């Protein structure tokens, strides 16, 4: 009868009531949930903030572009273009002179004789340079006029904005005090427009002089140089033939032609100039930066992909256990090298080394060697390759290891050797994993800042592809580099500030896309094997 144990004794005595306990549980849950919410909100905020600051760019850039036309800067740039082309031709001439002198030197012609032979050519070159004298004067006169107009338009816009601000905030008396000056744009533009007539007479005169000059062009002793010179003559004739077109453009140009809204977007996405803080006109075109980023990434992946994949295959399939235990952590260890240290190493060692190597006689046969800049795409690419290798290695090795054992065993059972198994079975089976590893490596490279800021040379220009592969030995600027370099100096809310946010947004979108693609690939790959 008393055999039934007292159940109560098995359960520990309650110290807190059930309700308090539940409240504590709820509180803990709320704490974690609250933190998660904060994390999510803040991370969402980042995205929203980037977009908010970035999209403001387009409106401001449109104003910037409209001012460019309304103040007649565009008009002056048509003439300036003609003048710049002339300068380029003039530079080409001195280039030809240099080449010719070098060629003669190689044949060990004494210096006096070289100078004597080339004297007619020098005369020709200087005569050619003189023909643009009037053009240059015209450009500089018009530049002064147009920038004065721009200045006054700009000042008026500023004052008007201040006044509107005051009116909105209710300080009408203060608003009255700000006098917005009238700018006589019509007169200023009319004066500017007289430039067309001057240009016509100047270009007619230049054309006549140049045709007679071209007819008397002196011959050059070397056939190769003569050929370049002939090419130059053809180009000059084309240039002269293009002058009436410029005249035509000047005549039809009008400050009142409206600029469509999409020009603001297209001038950002396809603009080939990134010019800031200029007295004349600021341009925010992402193309040179994008090209820089892409070229650096291509060079980096060119080295990192073979090395990373090869080492992944080696470690997962060929290496002995001892090697594996040592190599794997070591390569992963590389990813912990801070990027600024790598960048410093690039400046101190790699750049010097590459330049010294390019001067060595071994590489004489390469046309674009020796290189002049030690910091260039190639230097930055080599260092970034080292940063991408650990990412590619780790993920590719994972993918190779995750191939089910049965695949390998079946392959051996069919009589395949190790190489065949690796090349025909393991690599194809893990291909999507390897590709996603490469993509994530690319994501890392394209978003890297310090190495490119320190080692890519920071020259905002699209590399000159006419040299072929030599283009990768030229300095560039990159998207990450420009943000790091210019962000500290911009005025808050200015077009430049917002342009940098737009660059950040482009970077954000690119890396997000790459990441997403890589994850998609991995998900598919898991399914196909599972």
């Amino acid at each position, binding site marked *: 009868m008393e055999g039934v144990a007292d159940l109560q004794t098995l359960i520990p005595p309650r110290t807190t009531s059930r309700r308090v306990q539940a409240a504590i549980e709820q509180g803990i849950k709320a704490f974690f949930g609250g933190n998660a919410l904060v994390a999510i909100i803040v991370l969402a905020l980042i995205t929203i903030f980037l977009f908010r600051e970035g999209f403001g760019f387009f409106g401001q850039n449109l104003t910037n572009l409209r001012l460019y036309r309304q103040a007649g800067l565009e008009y002056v740039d048509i003439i300036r273009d003609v003048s710049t082309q002339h300068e380029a031709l003039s530079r080409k001439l001195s280039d030809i002179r240099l080449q010719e002198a070098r060629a003669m030197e190689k044949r060990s012609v004494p210096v006096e004789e070289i100078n004597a032979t080339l004297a007619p050519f020098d005369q020709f070159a200087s005569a050619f340079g003189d023909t643009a004298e009037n053009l240059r004067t015209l450009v500089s006169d018009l530049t002064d006029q147009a920038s004065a107009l721009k200045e006054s338009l700009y000042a008026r816009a500023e004052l008007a904005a201040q006044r509107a601000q005051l009116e909105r905030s209710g300080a009408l008396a203060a608003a009255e005090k700000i006098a917005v000056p009238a700018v006589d744009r019509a007169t200023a533009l009319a004066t500017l427009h007289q430039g067309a007539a001057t240009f016509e007479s100047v270009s007619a005169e230049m054309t006549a002089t140049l045709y007679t000059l071209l007819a008397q062009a002196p011959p050059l002793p070397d056939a190769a140089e003569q050929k370049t010179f002939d090419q130059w003559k053809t180009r000059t004739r084309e240039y002269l033939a293009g002058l009436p077109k410029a005249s035509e453009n000047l005549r039809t140009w009008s400050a009142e032609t409206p600029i469509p809204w999409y020009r603001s977007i297209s001038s950002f996405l396809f603009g080939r100039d990134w010019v800031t803080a200029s007295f004349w006109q600021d341009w925010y075109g992402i193309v040179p930066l994008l090209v820089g980023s892409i070229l650096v990434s291509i060079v980096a992946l060119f080295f990192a992909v073979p090395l990373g994949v090869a080492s992944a295959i080696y470690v997962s399939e060929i290496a002995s256990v001892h090697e594996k235990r040592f190599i794997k952590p070591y390569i992963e260890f590389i990813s912990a090298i801070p990027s600024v240290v790598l960048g410093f190493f690039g400046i101190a060692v790699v750049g010097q080394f590459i330049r010294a190597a390019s001067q060595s006689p071994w590489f004489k046969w390469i046309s674009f060697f020796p290189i002049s800049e030690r910091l260039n795409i190639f230097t930055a690419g080599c260092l970034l390759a080292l940063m991408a290798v650990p990412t590619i290695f780790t993920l590719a090795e994972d993918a190779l290891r995750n191939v089910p054992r049965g695949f390998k065993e079946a392959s051996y059972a069919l009589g395949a050797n190790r190489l065949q198994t690796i090349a025909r079975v393991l690599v194809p089976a893990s291909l999507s994993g390897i590709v996603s590893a490469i993509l994530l490596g690319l994501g890392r490279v394209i978003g890297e800042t310090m190495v490119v800021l320190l080692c890519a040379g920071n020259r905002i220009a699209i590399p000159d592809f006419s040299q072929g592969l030599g283009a990768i030995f030229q300095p560039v600027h990159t998207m990450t580099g420009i943000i790091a370099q210019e962000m500290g100096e911009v005025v808050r809310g200015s077009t430049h500030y917002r342009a940098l946010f737009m660059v*950040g947004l482009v970077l954000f979108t690119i890396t997000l896309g790459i990441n997403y693609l890589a994850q998609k690939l991995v998900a598919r790959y898991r399914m196909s094997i599972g």
Partner: protein
Amino acid sequence: MIAVTSKSRRSRRIESAIFWVLRLATYFILACATYIFLDIGIKGGRTVFTTTPPFINVPFLTEPPQTLYVFDYEGKTLTLSDRQFREWKTTHADVEVNPSSVAYSAGGIWPCIVGTALLVIGSMALALLIGISSAIYLSEYSRNGRMIRLVRIAILNLAGVPSIVFGLFGFGLFVIFFGWNVSLIAGWFTLGLMVLPAIITASEESLRAVPQGLREGSLALGASKWQTIRKNVLPYAMPGILTSSILGIARVAGETAPIMFTAAYAMKDEMPWQVARWTDFFFQGVMALPYHIYVVSSKIPQNEYTERVQYGGAFVFLFLVMLIALTSIVLRERSRSRLSW
């Protein structure tokens, strides 16, 4: 028969040749990395270590950076730091010298070490609190709905966003919009948010790796949800969380781009604790080691005297970060062998 063996011999030769190529590629990577370590280790070691006891260049580690003065005096070239130069002037008041100055190249890197430590501590405290809590919520409490899945994908993708974009965001929001200026607290938030996605993802992964049975067993015994998490989930997930946190530290310490315009000053005379009011502590910029390396390697003209501080700084920084990373790798290897189900 003969044809077959010669063919198989040939294929074996090809095989071993290709294996050698792969082996060389692997060792080439290791050689490159080793070269970097050795170059910075040897040249930096000359700055950081000395040949006389105590064998460590204490002034380099405990003094602020100073300007170096180089001048000829009585046939010798003297290189004096700012402070030494002023002392020398008092004793040689009548001597007219024309020194050339090299910025940052004398003295040490003490304020930079302190600044980096402060940045790491603050941002990691922030990131770990929010990150681990969020991971616990996501893996233990949240229901696996579409919303949560979306959040998870978003967080995973944010982990790959370049650090400079976080820097840009931190600059726009904290420095300018909130008006915190270049300050410690702006750096904390920027860096903390930068590692947050990585910490959430890694912590959640190690929480999910704990078998469901452990939770169910505990709940079946009448334990509450929190008791289950505290006693039966967290202890087993801890090694993984710790590893990811330490990797986070290495990343936070190693990044330069996000602090360039949110927290770092190129030069500051006072130490961080020398502030008028305690609130100023949070709103002051600090010197940071990575930014200092950036400044000395690109912003000042290079000459024979700058190498000392460049390599010295790089050496200290590299090996600090390496030490942190090594800890995490060792920890992971050890926890991997201990826990397995």
